[in-house]
């Protein structure tokens, strides 16, 4: 009896440590990135603390800054989810950017033809889902590596957008390829008008909740996680592994398409050449740092939103170029990969030895 008691207390202490581990790695990686960023800022001849302070003040200190932070966070939430949901079923969706671009295109086209944002949003969801679904279908039933197919489909999607804005959707006489201002009726309404926060932000929050519910509270989400963790056992249990993989890509693509639509209809109000600033790619980082969990994604997207929104204030007040931001954005991933592999190495060796 005694031995059983002590045994169970010892064992139940372990998961807590695991939870701490989960948080510790991304937090430590981000901290190191911030420290390295500070060193670079100092090397540029500025005071790192002052620069970071300006960054924070710019992003959170004013109503305008706060609004900008929130608006910048929304596409990263969508894009993070677009990568995270397929990731849960074991697929790596590098194609969020292409799916997002097509979503933006469809939203703009719908705005021009229907003067209605609902059609645009729905169309973008379908477009993103189909674009991702193509790669998902090829992977699930024909074994085509989704990393390669989604990268290629990104190029194709970006090409399609260029064709559209230079051709049928392009505005005559514009100095650069663009659709021009979209009809006002077709734009997303503001949910907080005095901060100019558009409805897409609310949709991003909803997307977080829906994704969490889907992954952890529905049978299809259970199947996705099972397939992601052990496809052999999942298949053995009677789960159709290909259709689950395909589903997860559809969902991921839908979120990416929505990201594009919200950005076009909520922020830019037009579709121009090179309109996306690579949210799809940043989404990979967000999903990765956020542990492919909606909660983690929300935190990381917010962090990235803050450093993006505060960058111009930092440059203005301290003279540190805003180009430091992508550095701080990218470095955590590097360290996280390092931590994760370093952490898993001894245990896999141990496991292999135990076989």
């Amino acid at each position, binding site marked *: 009896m005694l031995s059983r008691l002590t045994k169970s207390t010892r064992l139940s202490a372990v998961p807590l440590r695991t939870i701490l581990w989960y948080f510790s790695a991304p937090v430590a990686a981000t901290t190191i990135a911030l420290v390295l960023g500070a060193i670079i800022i100092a090397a540029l001849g500025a005071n790192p603390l002052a620069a970071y302070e300006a960054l924070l003040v710019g992003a959170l200190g004013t109503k305008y800054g706060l609004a900008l932070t929130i608006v910048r966070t929304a596409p990263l939430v969508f894009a993070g989810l677009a990568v995270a949901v397929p990731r849960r079923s074991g697929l790596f969706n590098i194609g969020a950017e292409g799916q997002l671009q097509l979503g933006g295109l469809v939203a703009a086209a719908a705005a021009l033809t229907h003067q209605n944002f609902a059609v645009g949003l729905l169309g973008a969801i379908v477009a993103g889902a189909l674009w991702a679904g193509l790669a998902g279908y090829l992977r699930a039933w024909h074994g085509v590596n989704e990393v390669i197919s989604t990268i290629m489909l990104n190029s194709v999607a970006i090409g399609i957008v260029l064709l559209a804005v230079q051709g049928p959707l392009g505005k005559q006489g514009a100095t650069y390829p663009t659709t021009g201002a979209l009809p006002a009726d077709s734009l997303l309404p503001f949910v907080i008008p005095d901060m100019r926060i558009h409805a897409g932000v609310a949709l991003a929050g909803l997307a977080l909740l829906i994704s969490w519910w889907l992954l952890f509270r529905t049978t299809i989400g*259970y199947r996705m996680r099972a397939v992601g963790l052990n496809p052999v056992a999942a298949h053995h249990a009677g789960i159709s592994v290909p259709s689950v993989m395909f589903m997860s890509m559809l969902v991921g693509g839908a979120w990416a398409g929505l990201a594009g639509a919200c950005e076009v209809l909520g922020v830019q109000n037009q579709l121009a050449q090179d309109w996306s600033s690579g949210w799809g790619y940043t989404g990979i980082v967000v999903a990765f740092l956020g542990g492919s969990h909606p909660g983690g994604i929300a935190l990381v997207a917010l962090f990235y939103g803050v450093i993006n929104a505060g960058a111009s204030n930092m440059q203005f007040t301290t003279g540190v170029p805003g180009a430091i931001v992508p550095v701080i954005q990218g470095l955590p991933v590097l360290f996280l990969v390092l931590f994760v592999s370093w952490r898993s190495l001894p245990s896999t060796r141990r496991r292999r030895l135990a076989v």
Partner: protein
Amino acid sequence: MLALLGENGAGKSTLVKIIAGIYRPDTGALSVDGASVRIESARDAIRHGIGVVHQHFMLVSSLTVLENMQLGIVARAPIAPDRSRYAASAVRSFLIAHEFDVPVERIVGDLPVGLQQRLEVLKTLYWGGQILVLDEPTATLTPDQADDLFARLRSLAKRGHAIVVVTHKLSEALVHCDRVIVLRHGRIALTGNAQDLTAERLAEAIVGAGALAALGRTEGPAGSVALKVSGLCVKDDYGHQAIRDVDIALRRGEVLGLAGVDGNGQTELAEALYGARRPTAGAIQLQDVDVTTSPIHVRQSLGMRDIPPDRTSSGLISRFSVWENLMLEDHALTRRWERLDLAKAKRGAAAAITEFDIRTPNADTTCGRLSGGNQQKVVLARVLNAKPTVLIAEQPTRGLDVRATAYVHRSLLEARARGAAILLISSDLDEVAALADRIAVMFRGSIVDTMVNRNVDRNRLGRLMTGAEA
């Protein structure tokens, strides 16, 4: 030539990997030619003249014969390779001296399997191998190719090479090797000269012949036929015929024990029955429904369940919690679209943990943290709670301790008493003898005999398992 025998999981491959420098021993010492050595990498092994031919070819299939031969020479050279051995002419004359008459420009992937196997051996020799360790070298070869390989190994042995052949084919050990060591559960169970041994003695040492624990198996009339297999033929991963014309009629309330040395088609048979492998001929009828080509979930809904031989790779999702694993085969979860009923799942898990005595801190603990016995209990609880009418149990106690083994045995017999039809596939003869109503013996993909499990002659069983008696 030394044969290292033992069933899957007996520790053969682990031993080979220690010798090859892939694993490190916890304790103990290795010595080569009387000198104690430390082998910490494949490079160390080569340096000490140990050449390992792994079960899966370690050839770069997109490179040529010549390039594959040169690989180890380059790898050992810090700056420039030893020209006298690296040169194409040197490789060519070495190959000719060993009667390997294939142009060195041929791409390795285009060569037939038998030639690739020979190239593996020659490669290790060329790299300086004095001690050759071959891990199941004939697994992918036809009998003729295997005989050819052994003839060549014999001539190498005559030239002074020491050769270890890891196998679970008894005939290879007895016919082709000089000495035999049998491993069982990681210990040496038997060692001797091949000429002094018989196939029966080896079989006994491999599968064990300890005293039988008396189990409360009540005799009862078997019910209707639940699983009917006729004329089943199945191919293995390499396209060889693994199962030939197998007929089985499994009745409700009976345990049919499938005895046989590992690798005689048991795995392929189980996969075909459960739906993980498509048969090439024959029919499988489950509850009078033809399921020969049906997917797994159709068989599940007809009441079939399977205890897979390897719980960690195909039985459990080790990063899922106990309760998540317990509902893995629930039809709603695997096929339908609905809300996850957490409360119900956790209630079910709590009941299963009590009923099956799963030792876990709580239902939220991930299965990877449980001991092997408790992991197997999770699989068992999931499978038996589905109240299967047909249960395929593959090596259900592999790697378990005595207590967990007894528990699994009792549970299987309880399921039998409830009317389940159980096909027990085991290479442990004691297990088959203790549980089965009838025993079918598999040898080289065929059922060579089926007998009622009463006063069975163990020696005859051994002879059947080794093909000594048809």
